[in-house]
């Protein structure tokens, strides 16, 4: 039973570019959340998708957008990349009120 998977593992972009990160939730999970983890910090909530709609959003600018597909997989898009967007991006999936299952993350470096 595969857990949460994310792609790519690592990514290097330059300022101003756009990036798309992908996530497949754990089998049976219907809710996907995205978190940004800067170096030495705890994860910060970006947004959550349920039934293909954004249900909650954290304090992130509109440059951060997402999508959820009918098979529950999800994408995170970041436009006009800034140096400060360099971080580990974590995808988490859940079903019900228990703890979320996290993927291994995508390490984004913006030069």
């Amino acid at each position, binding site marked *: 039973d595969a857990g*949460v998977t994310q792609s790519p593992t690592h990514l290097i972009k330059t300022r101003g570019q756009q990036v798309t990160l992908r996530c497949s939730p754990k089998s049976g999970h219907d*809710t996907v*959340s995205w*978190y940004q983890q800067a170096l*030495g*910090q*705890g*994860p*910060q*909530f970006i947004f*959550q998708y*349920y039934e293909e709609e954004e*249900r*909650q959003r*954290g304090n992130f600018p509109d440059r951060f957008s997402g999508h959820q597909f009918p098979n529950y997989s999800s994408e995170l898009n970041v436009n006009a990349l800034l140096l400060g967007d360099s971080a580990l991006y*974590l995808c*988490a999936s*859940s079903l*019900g*009120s*228990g*703890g*979320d*299952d*996290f*993927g*291994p*993350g995508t390490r984004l470096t913006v030069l």
Partner: protein
Amino acid sequence: AQSVTQLDSQVPVFEEAPVELRCNYSSSVSVYLFWYVQYPNQGLQLLLKYLSGSTLVKGINGFEAEFNKSQTSFHLRKPSVHISDTAEYFCAVRGISNFGNEKLTFGTGTRLTIIP
């Protein structure tokens, strides 16, 4: 809104000694509480969770935590640590609502280093 405070950013402990990692939270609503572990260059792994019932919860790898509502704390403990416990530990809180899973709010983490 919720917030989480992890009082110790780094905790060095000798191998086979006990350890306690402290976590305090604040919230205007009832909460669920979690501890996650993060090994280098990896994602987060759930150690244990408190949803309801007994305030003492046991998790994986011999860890346990106690929910104290009056002190708004959820400290993590292990009676005897091993080298393999070296990692970053995150406390997280989730507000309880009628609208499905609320977001997780994390603390800044505690780096546990086991000294041989």
